[in-house]
C-alpha cells in the first residue's frame, strides 16, 4: 500500500502512522452537550466503502494527512493536508 503525500509524493505505508477517522478534526463547540461530546469521542461508523482517515507522515514530512480510501477495494482515492481543515 502506498499513500500519495501532498508534500513528499508517493510513499510506502511504513512511513505513516494511522490515527483513526478524520471526524476527529470536527471538534464540537466547547459548550456542546455531553451527548455530542460522547459521540465525537467514542462513536465511529464502520462503512463498507468510502471513508476518511487521519494519517501522520511520521517518517517523512511530519504532516497530518486526511486520506480518503475505500474499505472494500483498499484503494486510496485522495489525500490532502489536514492543516487546511478547521480544528
Amino acid at each position: 500500500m502506498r499513500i500519495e503525500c501532498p508534500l513528499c509524493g508517493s510513499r510506502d505505508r511504513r512511513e505513516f502512522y494511522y490515527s483513526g477517522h478524520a471526524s476527529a478534526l470536527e471538534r464540537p463547540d466547547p459548550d456542546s452537550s455531553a451527548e455530542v461530546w460522547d459521540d465525537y469521542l467514542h462513536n465511529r461508523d464502520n462503512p463498507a466503502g468510502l471513508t476518511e482517515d487521519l494519517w501522520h507522515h511520521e517518517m517523512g514530512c511530519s504532516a497530518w494527512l486526511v486520506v480518503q480510501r475505500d474499505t472494500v477495494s483498499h484503494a486510496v482515492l485522495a489525500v490532502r493536508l489536514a492543516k487546511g481543515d478547521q480544528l
Partner: protein
Amino acid sequence: MVELYATSASEAALPLKIGGVSVAEVATSLFLVAPFKGKFTQAATVLNTQMGLEWPAVHELKRMGGAYVLWFDHAHIAFMGAEPSVELARYAAVTDVSDACCIIDISGVSVRNVLARVTPLDVRAKSFNIGMTQRSMVMHMQASITCLGKSKFRVMVFRSMARTLVHDLTIAMESVAAREKKV
C-alpha cells in the same frame, strides 16, 4: 572551571570505507527554523534580504558557499553550516539542534546501491538528483537525506541513533561490495 569538550556523535566508528563507498561524519552547526503562525512572508523576506536566499521549497536545497539551507519538513527549514540571522528570530522559532543529530556524508560510485538497501526512497538519479532533499527512513530511523553530488549524499539521523546508522550502513556497504566483487 571544568573544561568541556564536544565529542562526535559516531565516536570512533567513522570514517569508514568499504568497497567503493566511504562514510565520513560531518561536523557542522544545524539550526531548525519554523515561521510563527501568519509570519511566513516576513520570515521569507528576511531570509531573502539578509542572506540573499529564496525560502527553500519542498525537497529543495539552497547552497551558500559551503553552507546549506534546506527544506526539512512540513513546518521547518534547516540551516547547515550557517547561522540564521537574529532578525529571522523575530518571525520564526529558531532552534540550535547542532548536538541533536548525527550528520554523515556517504559517497562513492555505488552510493545509490547502498542507500537503496536502507531506505524505501527511489534513489535513482532520475528521481533523486543533485540539490534535492527528502525525509524518509534509513532502516527504522527517521532521516533527512540530501543529494549533494552525482555520487554523494548527506544523511542525518537523531544523534542517539548514530551507532545504529553506522551499523546499518556497514551491512549495506558490505553487501554491495560483495556483489560487486569480480569472480
